[in-house]
């Protein structure tokens, strides 16, 4: 199990795939751990990508600072990891909290990236997200990691995914519960206490950017992704049909295919963001559909209106 050294802390990471291939770096969400990207690693390595996964500072087998974790340190850890990948093209993708860190990295070191894929993420704390975050933190404090998982699972996953697992949810939760500690998760959540919105800096991201948002994402709804689309110049917003916040867990084959196609388009010089809005296919390999003209993509009903 290799580790990077960040000051006095160790960051656990894994590399897979050909050393000379274009790289994909995948950044965990708040309660996740590197092994949850296994399906992505396998799918992307099969497409000749090199895949880097890691546990954030405070997660899994990485060190867990006892009192304070700064988001700047997380970006620095990401920078160290990307430094391990040589000089080839690097595509960076992150989910939720990991998407925020990917955005921070692109703002600070965008020149190192060939492409950026923020998923289920945000650049600012809307009142809803702020209050939800506070409530989730209180849930963690009062009920522990298990209770936090109980809140997140129904919020972020579909009935179709949950139904067959209802009688076995403890097994689903167990690994995340084992590897994540309450105080460390709390430190990760409290790294938002002095959070400054990234929105004013998004326009500095010149990297090709594909923004992925689940159709039914409750935790980080469409409006938060719209902020990214409007401000990142070479971006497109792709809506994943019938998907919730944690679609990376629920639809790994489709999402890995989208990641691979995006990187292929960028490397072939075909990518044009144009701040366009697309609807992803239901299955891997399907066609992307332009969002119907004349309808408002921020609404859940087919209301007329145009993108801002």
């Amino acid at each position, binding site marked *: 199990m290799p580790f990077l050294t960040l000051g*006095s802390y160790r960051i656990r990471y894994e590399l897979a795939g050909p050393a000379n291939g274009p790289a994909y770096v995948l950044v965990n969400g708040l309660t996740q751990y590197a092994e949850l990207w296994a399906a992505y690693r396998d799918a992307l390595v099969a497409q000749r990508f090199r895949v880097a996964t890691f546990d954030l500072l405070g997660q*899994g*087998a990485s*060190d*867990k*600072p*006892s*009192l*304070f974790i700064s988001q700047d340190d997380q970006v620095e850890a990401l920078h160290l990891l990307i430094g391990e990948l040589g000089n080839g093209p690097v595509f960076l993708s992150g989910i939720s909290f990991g998407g925020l860190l990917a955005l921070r990295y692109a703002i600070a070191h965008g020149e190192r990236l060939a492409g950026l894929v923020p998923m289920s993420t945000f650049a600012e704390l809307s009142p809803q997200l702020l209050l939800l975050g506070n409530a989730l933190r209180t849930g*963690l*404090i*009062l*009920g*522990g*990691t298990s209770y936090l998982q109980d809140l997140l699972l129904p919020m972020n996953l579909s009935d179709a995914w949950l139904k067959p697992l209802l009688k076995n949810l*403890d*097994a689903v939760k*167990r690994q995340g*519960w*084992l*590897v994540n*500690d*309450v*105080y*460390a998760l*709390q430190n990760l959540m409290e790294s938002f206490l002095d959070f400054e919105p990234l929105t004013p800096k998004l326009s500095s991201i010149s990297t090709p950017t594909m923004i992925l948002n689940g159709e039914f994402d409750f935790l980080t709804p469409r409006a938060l992704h719209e902020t990214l689309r409007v401000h990142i110049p070479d971006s497109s917003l792709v809506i994943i049909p019938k998907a919730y916040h944690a679609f990376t867990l629920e639809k790994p084959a489709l999402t890995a295919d989208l990641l691979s196609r995006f990187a292929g388009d960028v490397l072939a010089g075909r990518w044009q963001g144009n701040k366009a809005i697309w609807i992803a296919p239901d299955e891997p390999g399907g066609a992307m559909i332009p969002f119907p003209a004349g309808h408002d993509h921020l609404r859940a009903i087919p209301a007329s209106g145009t993108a801002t």
Partner: protein
Amino acid sequence: MSQFLGPLDSSGRVPPHQQTRVASFLMSLHGALARQLAIALPGQLKAGWQTELNAQLHREAEIVSLLLRATTWVPDLALPWPALSWEAAWLPKPVEGVADVRDALAIDIAALGHAAHGVIRPAALLPVEAQAQDPFVMALRRIEFESGRLIQAQILFLKNDDLKPLRHAVSSAVETRHAQVRKLWTEMLDGIGVRRSDPTIG
């Protein structure tokens, strides 16, 4: 070596020699915290967060009482030496870099409490087959569950704005206590045939 306690008996209970060693360690640590809190708590509380410490004092004593009754004890002739080293380790050590001795001691007690409730995950030692209604199993789960709340008193104090000028000394003291508690906990588990794959957990 296994990552979990066991092998369990046919009823899903943890072997008594493992119960004895784990409970001894936890009683030593939580007993030390109870004693230190009893001495450190002022007769008249000065700040809101100290109400949490008062609650913690009684919860630490409750943990000791619970383990005393929930554990299936067996004679353990190898216990006295590690038990002495545990007790010595928990002794208060004024934190370096803090001029006020009372503050330096209070920070150390809080650092030890943070380590006790943050590093140690007794429920994470239980295999999924453990008998949920067994008193020892339930005690370990309860201790871990309560730790998530009890650590809040330490967090409130150690992250308090009053200690901001001492942040480096405070963080260093907490990391030192974490490393110490983790080392002793890991050694104790090694002694009963349990080795966590990741030294930062369990």
